[in-house]
């Protein structure tokens, strides 16, 4: 559901532009709101969430869609952990639909999806691996790299059981906002994918904006 935010940009406490192919990792405090802004349109923001006090509790795509009874995420979606607690809630969304079934690109899965000789091209899971390696204070390892949300991605499921990657429904300036119900580690890879027509083969920056 489309819902615009009432938050004012001049009251934001933190702003950071994340170029495609880079990662973002930061603790969002309980009560804070994070906006992910698609600066140029049809970008994919591959995002994972963890309980900052116990990262073994993390966003669970399967528990989230089952508990809300719908496979797409938008305003009102409660993002549920593997312990079935609400971690965050989507409080504003000008895109209308976000994917959590398609997972993140990886060098290995690129060999399957596109061609074996694409195996060394940059991918989201590599950005996450670097993020956890460079930020040892979170105590995370590959075991923590699980199934994510692809903000701004459009992956429709059909009644016959098909799943397709359609051109994005996002555009320059569209955003999604998440209010944290617990202290949450946000781990985002701004997708570097060069092989998928859904971003017009053109990965672009996103901005992360936080309000108290």
């Amino acid at each position, binding site marked *: 559901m489309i819902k615009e935010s009432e938050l004012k940009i001049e009251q934001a406490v933190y702003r950071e532009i994340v170029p495609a192919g880079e990662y973002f990792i930061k603790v969002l405090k309980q009560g804070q709101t994070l906006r992910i802004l698609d600066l140029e349109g049809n970008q994919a923001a591959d995002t994972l969430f963890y309980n900052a006090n116990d990262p*073994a509790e*993390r966003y*669970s*795509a*399967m*528990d989230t*869609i*089952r508990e809300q*009874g*719908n*496979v*797409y995420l938008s305003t009102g979606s409660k993002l549920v952990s*593997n312990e*079935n607690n609400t971690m965050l809630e989507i409080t504003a969304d000008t895109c209308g*639909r976000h994917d959590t*079934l*398609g*997972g*993140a690109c*990886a060098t*290995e*899965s*690129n*060999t*399957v*999806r596109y*061609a*074996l000789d694409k195996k060394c091209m940059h991918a989201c*899971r590599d950005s996450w691996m670097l993020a956890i390696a460079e930020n040892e204070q979170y105590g995370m390892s*590959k*075991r*923590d790299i*699980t*199934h994510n949300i692809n903000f701004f991605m459009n*992956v429709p*499921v*059909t*009644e016959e*059981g*098909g*799943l*397709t*990657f359609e051109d994005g429904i996002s555009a320059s300036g569209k955003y999604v906002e998440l209010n944290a119900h617990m202290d949450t580690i946000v781990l985002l890879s701004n997708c570097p994918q060069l092989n998928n027509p859904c971003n017009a083969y053109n990965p672009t920056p996103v901005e992360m904006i936080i309000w108290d």
Partner: protein
Amino acid sequence: MTKASADSAPTAGEILYEDIISPACHWSLRMRKGTSLKLIDVEGGANVGMLFYNPENLLERYNAPDTLKAQHTFKLTKGNCLYSDMGRIFCSIVEDSVGWHDTVSGNLTKKLVEKKWGQKSYQEARNEWTQNGYNSFLVELAKYGLGKKDMAANLNLFSAVGVDEKGNMKYKEDNSKPGDSIELRFEMDTLVLLHTCPHPMDTAKEYPRKPVKYQIKQAGSVYEDDYCKNYRDENTRGFRNNEIYHLGSCCND
């Protein structure tokens, strides 16, 4: 139970072992490349939660999103391959009389059992207790030094959840009939974790208790014209990744 005699090589399709997993139970086993696991829904309406790990590197595990997006599918059936997060194929679905298996709904938890049907403790109900899939996997994971961090999105074989044009999910009743089966041919050595607890969206009035029969079979050779290998171009490339992984192996065929 049948067993191949020690001095003759088993022939393709031969049943090497068979047994029953009782309702609301869990188990794990190592499947070798070149064998297959046939699961049979004895009474109809069964659910089998399943996870895969590479026994050589437990960090390589079944990845539902990679499996779905590689094959542009939401449901799993004959021809589909079940992928690891490392671009390899744990197993191929070589036979399926059901037509739709779920991999997006996760597991029943203690809380969900309580909400749907009410909890029956072991003390009170013994083998008739209302075990849940989440705890079942925790027990099997712990046997291999793994924990809740390692519990990836699982398969729910024999169960189906459809999606309407708005994305609303609906559990399909009567998806699997008595005698329905699925056969998984293993394309690499695989640690298989499984449980027979109900699907988390099962609409039955009472906690359903369904046994599942399983057979370990000798698989046939995988030829160039193999159905699963040619089901999609992505699968042909997945099989190539497995071939590369097994280069130099003594038993590679």
